[in-house]
């Protein structure tokens, strides 16, 4: 994929994260009640809406974070071949996604 497309995806995921993380912060930290209580967690875990929400948040967050990290690494250590950086981050991203998506899916 070209650098321009990767950057456009960075913008799209950035806008998506603004909405998704904003909602997550409001629901989990700024709203009343006990959002981190086990009952509240279990209630959200059984909802297909929240499952889709968290998986989408995870995909957007991983892409945005790892692409940002890639930009910093490639710019700061230009000797490193870009393909090595790309494949390392893609592998790390898939591993983190597998672990992090397993939690809400297994609780659903």
């Amino acid at each position, binding site marked *: 994929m070209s650098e321009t497309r990767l950057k456009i995806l960075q*913008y799209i995921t950035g806008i998506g994260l603004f909405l998704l*993380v904003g909602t997550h*912060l409001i629901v989990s930290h700024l709203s009343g009640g006990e959002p981190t209580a*086990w009952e509240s967690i279990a209630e959200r875990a059984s909802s297909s809406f929240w499952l889709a929400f968290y998986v989408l948040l995870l995909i957007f967050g991983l892409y945005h*974070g790892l692409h940002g*990290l890639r930009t910093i690494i490639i710019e700061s250590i230009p000797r490193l071949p870009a393909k090595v950086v790309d494949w390392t981050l893609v592998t790390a991203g898939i591993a983190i996604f597998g672990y992090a998506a397993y939690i809400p899916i297994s609780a659903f």
Partner: protein
Amino acid sequence: METKASEKGHLPNRLGIKGWVWGGNYTLERYLYTLHRLTGLGLLLYITLHLAMNGFRLGGVESWEDLMSVFGMSGFKVGEYLVAAAFIFHALNGGRLMLQHLGYTLGKPKPPVYPYVDSMRRRRPIVWVMLASIMALAIYVLVAFVT
């Protein structure tokens, strides 16, 4: 190294990470860029820890409540607020960067009349609007955290 960089059509990055802090007569926007990267790395570290902590949910009620009792301590509350503040800064500054990269808020071209003002040194109202919005939101979230 220089040959490789020039082959790709880029100038070599001689300053490396040191260039984030100082590389000459930097403007406010350049320091906002440094802060954007620092908050981005901080948020990435937080998200990694957050995802690892989420794994405690698989251990059942006791495991989860033990973890939550640790996070109820005041030190973690301060950390939680710093994460929220970093998110506010990163999100709003990211929006500004996006608009500038796409050329929307760069301002109209001006004739080169002395004293010359290059694009990096031009004062843009969007920077001050953004900083005011960050301050307002950070204070709002602080009040929400405290109360």
